[in-house]
């Protein structure tokens, strides 16, 4: 092989055309199916907005898969009829907090699936534009939020708000790159087998259950709807909390097993967490500052872990050090911004036991009520000292 190989044999012209045509066909079919069913909820914005607008107090928004939670939150925050006194922005770890747990305040639970710092930044813009700003904003900050390995693209549903936030901060070109980046992320998501596999599983599930292939509204109480389904679904009430159907929950042994393997299975990339992301913490502080400047009170909450999981995290020198550093950073951020900080990561502080958890990091209502009591107390303290900054 001396490099003079201009006559390397290739396909004939017709075979090459056949080869290219088939490659393109596979890609087009994959993309089309994924785009049509959109199980990644990349393009559901308009539908979810419509459903959120139409959702009455007695309606549940349901789907077999995770729908676009950001579109729901956006619509509810911009709804002129809104009159909530307390807004929860967090991951699903605080998503189970319901109106019944806050007897003295109207609540909007704006939990998001896998929120990232971009979500919080974009949410500040939503709050700016909200006709009725909730006077108390609760930010649920999971430990892994400051793990730089953790990344998620779902925030791109709020790209316009994210750009507006950073434009207001005086940032330039890189902000405008977010639009093409969103398009690119969507494109890749739809051209992959991983999505196609989820799509085909979803279609089969929906077909068997004779259920719609799009999110829809159901007029029913959570209890009544739970009695009609045979597998867990994503159920969001008008207040925003998710519904976990008791009959469909895992047995306690499974829950404890999940809690035990949380770290060893590297859930939330906890086992590979090397450093705490201080730049992300600084961005969180700026977002809190932004909310505080509008005169709202902020309560930063570190949600609890299942006791077994928490013990495992504390027993591991690396995660214990990171947890301590995260808590110190969040405490400092709260102190500097005038926010309240509730560190509820240790379940024993709340009096929550293993039976109070759905898995390693999601609580049942029994523990949720205790979290809500602590939040309400912190909100009272914060509201007493509330003033625009």
């Amino acid at each position: 092989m001396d490099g003079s190989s201009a006559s390397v044999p290739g396909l004939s012209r017709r075979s090459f055309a056949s080869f290219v045509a088939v490659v393109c066909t596979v890609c087009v079919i994959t993309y089309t199916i994924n785009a049509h069913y959109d199980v990644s909820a990349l393009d559901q914005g308009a539908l979810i907005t419509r459903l959120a607008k139409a959702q009455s107090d007695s309606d549940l928004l349901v789907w077999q898969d995770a729908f676009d939670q950001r579109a729901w939150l956006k619509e509810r925050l911009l709804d002129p009829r809104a009159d909530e006194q307390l807004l929860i922005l967090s991951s699903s770890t605080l998503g189970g907090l319901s109106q019944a747990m806050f007897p003295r305040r109207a609540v909007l639970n704006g939990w998001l699936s896998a929120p990232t710092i971009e979500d919080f930044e974009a949410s500040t813009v939503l709050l700016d534009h909200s006709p009725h700003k909730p006077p108390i904003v609760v930010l649920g900050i999971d430990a892994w939020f400051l793990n730089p390995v953790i990344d998620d693209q779902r925030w791109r549903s709020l790209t316009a708000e994210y750009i507006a936030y950073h434009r207001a901060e005086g940032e330039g070109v890189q902000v405008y790159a977010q639009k093409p980046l969103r398009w690119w992320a969507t494109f890749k998501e739809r051209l992959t087998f991983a999505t196609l596999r989820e799509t085909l599983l979803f279609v089969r599930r929906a077909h068997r259950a004779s259920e719609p292939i799009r999110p829809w509204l159901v007029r029913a109480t959570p209890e009544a709807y739970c009695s009609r389904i045979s597998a867990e679904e994503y159920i969001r009430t008008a207040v925003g909390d998710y519904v976990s159907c008791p009959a469909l929950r895992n047995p306690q042994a499974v829950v404890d097993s999940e809690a035990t393997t949380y770290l060893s299975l590297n859930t939330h990339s906890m086992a590979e967490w090397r450093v705490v992301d201080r730049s992300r913490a600084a961005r969180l502080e700026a977002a809190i500052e932004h909310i505080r400047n509008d005169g709202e009170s902020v309560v930063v909450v570190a949600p609890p872990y299942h006791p077994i999981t928490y013990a495992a995290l504390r027993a591991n020198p690396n995660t214990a050090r990171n947890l301590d550093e995260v808590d110190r950073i969040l405490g400092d951020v709260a102190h500097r911004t005038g926010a309240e900080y509730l560190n509820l990561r240790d379940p024993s502080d709340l009096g929550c036991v293993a039976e109070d958890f759905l898995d390693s990091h999601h609580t049942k209502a029994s523990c949720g009520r205790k979290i809500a009591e602590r939040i309400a107390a912190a909100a009272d303290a914060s509201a007493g000292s509330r003033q625009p900054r």
Partner: protein
Amino acid sequence: MLFNSFEFLLLFLPVVLGVALLLRGNVLLFWIALASCVFYAFAGHSWFLIPMGISTTLDFWVGGRIGASSNPRVRRAYLILSLTANLGLLAYFKYSGLIARTIESALNVVSPHAGNAAWVDLFRVVLPAGISFYTFQTISYVIDIYRGESPPERNFLKYLSFVAFFPHLVAGPLTRHHQLIPQLSRIAERGISPRWRAALILFAVGLAKKVLIADRVGNAIDPVIATIGTQGFVASWLVLLGYSVQIYFDFSGYSDMAIGLGRLFAIELPQNFNSPYQATSPSDFWARWHITLSRWLRDYLYIPLGGNRKGDMRTKVNLMITMVLGGLWHGANWTFAMWGLFHGLLLWGYHATSETWDVWPEWWRRVATYLLMTLAWVFFRAPTLSLAGRWFGGLAGLRGLGALEAVSPHMVLLILAAVVGSMTMRNVYQRDMSTLSLTQAGFVGAVAGVALVMMNYSSKFLYFQF
């Protein structure tokens, strides 16, 4: 940036190739070098460019000085400067960690706390991807000039493009200057006319090997290998066969993709694999596996050591030195040295018994060679020598038959099919692609399409670490 990523295939490659098609002369060479540096920076860290820049610039300058001097002592001094700098960089980035760990362990034996010295941290450095490849390429360039076998390159852009040409930069094929620089001269002069039909089919075959076979098998066997010290006979053998499939399809898939990409730029990179599992002896295996490295080691290590010209004993010693250093080239771990030693012993054994071995039926020799080469992979894959020992224990049945369900049945079928296929089927370079029918080409297209949409399941190439 990986070849098997949408960013590379749908953004980087079309832009780089599209612009390159419009250019000629030094502008084209500059564009190729620039694109290669961008590719390399995205392959890991942007600081990876610094050692590559030092190595490239120094060797270009040294090559020029050697070429310009007729004084043997001066020429020798420049050669030593180049070798010291290149091997020094390689030693620091690749081997200092191993040496530090070894010293640390030794000190710990003497005193439990003596090894926890701060100086050890100085040697915990990230290995720049591809450093082993480009270092060997630039060393061979300088040595060839020193030997008077080729003149120094006067055009730095051409030289930089030779070193950094992105299809072969990170994991080969290890390309010599006389293979690449004349082709770069040609495209600089005449422009690029891509060999689309020869390029894309080869790239597709490589992608399918990587994504549909190597990664699938790798995902199935990695968890078992993580507990190989406790596995029984069946699992030990299954994952070993699986690893022989994974390493071959991963690396040869990468090489196919690299050669295919080269063809898009009208550059023919050297073939790196020739059905190595069809080899009929250990010696034949090394003529088929990682061909470009084997030839480099032969030309720049084995022959300079004396090759087979200094008697039987010295030949064997040279062989062992070459194979052990070749093993260590793959990684900073004594397991790689042992892998090289094992291969050296196999070659030694083969040469001692070749008269008997070579009269066996071809099939026996092929199967025996495959099994011997596969046993050697234990050292290549095991993280420590002690675990390699335990793996051999499992292979010998010392822990009983063990669980049969360690690897799923369909994965067992895939592994066995891949082993049989790689031992019997003609490879893509032996086939006349121009005779593929519409249906056959369509089938290859379907496989390539599936590989394309499964890319996000893919991992890095195993040879990136070497």
